[in-house]
């Protein structure tokens, strides 16, 4: 029997520290974040050094490149927290074309960008926390990355 489960049962038995309503509301809202018909892009181990977003001298918290792949599409994302806000930049390979749209989502807000000719995209001003990227291409099902946790 795991110690954490025993402690959790004791906490529930004591009736102390009930789950905050905000946590329950956030859990209910997650249902709306599913991607109907979408294809999940699984994580790929990659050893790519942080790129242009790496600014250790400024105290920027950055986490390096994460790579996801599905159906021949590769999505690289790199995150940083600057001040209280999260920035997300990345690249879709092969470049998905001018009609594609890249959606960068947090549980609270999503922002849509048209990728560059080389498949690059960038979004700033997001709340830190969980983030996922969805690539929408005409004639293809959307491809979404798994959710990534980003905190300063």
């Amino acid at each position, binding site marked *: 029997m795991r110690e954490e*489960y*025993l*402690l959790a049962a004791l906490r529930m038995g004591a009736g102390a520290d009930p789950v*905050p309503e905000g946590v329950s509301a956030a*859990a*209910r809202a*997650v249902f709306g974040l599913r991607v*109907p018909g979408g294809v999940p892009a699984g994580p790929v181990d990659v050893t790519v050094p942080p790129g242009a977003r790496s600014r250790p001298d400024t105290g920027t918290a950055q986490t390096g490149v994460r790579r996801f792949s599905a159906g021949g599409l590769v999505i690289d994302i790199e995150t940083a927290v600057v001040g209280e806000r999260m920035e997300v930049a990345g690249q879709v390979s092969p470049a998905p074309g001018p009609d594609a749209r890249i959606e960068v989502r947090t549980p609270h807000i999503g922002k849509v960008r048209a990728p560059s000719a080389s498949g690059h995209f960038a979004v700033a001003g997001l709340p830190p926390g969980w983030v996922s990227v969805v690539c929408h291409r005409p004639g293809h099902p959307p491809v979404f990355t798994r*959710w990534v*946790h980003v905190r300063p």
Partner: protein
Amino acid sequence: MSADDSFTIIDQATWEDLVARFDGRMWAVARAFGLSTADAADAVQGAWLRLVENADAIRDPERIGAWLVTTTRHEAARVGRRARGEIVADLDLPDTALPDPTAAVVDADFGRRVWRRLDLLGEPCRSLIRLYVLHPEARYAQIAVRLDLPVGSIGPTRARCMARLRALVEEEVR
């Protein structure tokens, strides 16, 4: 299978029922890791997001509860390590096909039975575990002051007390 297909077994009403039944257990597990309320909220939300992205890996709806509790434990451990400044690999994922069957003990009724077993332990175990359970963010130094024990003894004493409690509980459930 697409995400759309996999969600045919989980509609909005089913999802809200899952939240009502399991969010308290998930919260208790996250807090049992000593996480702050903000970090525990992140861990619980992370487990729900994993359900969204892994729904096709869960064939048996009856096992979703155990899967959610197991996944919360993984996410809480990961958030806790990151909060301590450790490097955490995002690729380190729980096996979605294998929810931990012992997650079923995370239950208020079972917890009340464990409290009764806790009363069988002498001091300082009883007070130490009580403090640890009710104040998950308390540091060893704070517990040492409250119990008038050397701070260096809190970790080993706690481990010994939890082992004794676990043995008492397992004796009961056998």
